[in-house]
């Protein structure tokens, strides 16, 4: 499964608390991505990274921040979680071919 892991796999938290999700890869790939998956919306890009300390916003970046201090790790932080951020979060890395992506197993986040 392309050496991508996500932690935690499940998390329940309360509104207003900070949350950090971790994506770890062993493929040494330059590109990494964070998506959220919601019914009726498919997958929407939150943030992405094209190298260590190089990140940019995606389609739905409000309320999220990211950091990439090492090639293998891409962190997604919700500074103050809201109920609208209840979702399944997927990390992905670039593949062998341009625009091909490999996905992690997902993190199910519930904000009460």
């Amino acid at each position: 499964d392309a050496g991508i892991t996500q932690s935690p796999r499940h998390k329940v938290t309360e509104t207003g608390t900070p949350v950090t999700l971790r994506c770890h890869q062993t493929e040494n790939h330059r590109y990494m991505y964070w998506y959220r998956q919601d019914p009726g919306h498919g997958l929407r890009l939150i943030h992405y990274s094209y190298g260590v300390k190089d990140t940019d916003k995606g389609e739905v970046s409000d309320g999220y921040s990211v950091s990439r201090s090492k090639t293998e790790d891409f962190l997604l932080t919700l500074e103050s979680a809201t109920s609208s951020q209840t979702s399944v979060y997927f990390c992905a890395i670039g593949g062998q071919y341009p625009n091909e992506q490999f996905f992690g197993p997902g993190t199910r986040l519930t904000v009460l």
Partner: protein
Amino acid sequence: AQRVTQPEKLLSVFKGAPVELKCNYSYSGSPELFWYVQYSRQRLQLLLRHISRESIKGFTADLNKGETSFHLKKPFAQEEDSAMYYCALSGVGYGNKLVFGAGTILRVKS
């Protein structure tokens, strides 16, 4: 702006019947189109990409630039094809990013 439309939330067919999952896109340049699949309790995985023009698990998809479509087809559905299918788009100058459609659940009934 780039956009991918999958008009059907759910497609239910009987085993052995033909399957067509629809995908339409909006993109001003030369697109790259993909189909991704997510089986129950598994991670999202690439099914096929239009550039390779290959058939995977009996599925094919042809890019029709005139109709801006990239429909996924299979002549005879199998129960193990039941899954969520996503159409995705990228293109030149889009920085290795993908835009996904909302997805279509395919249910193959026995």
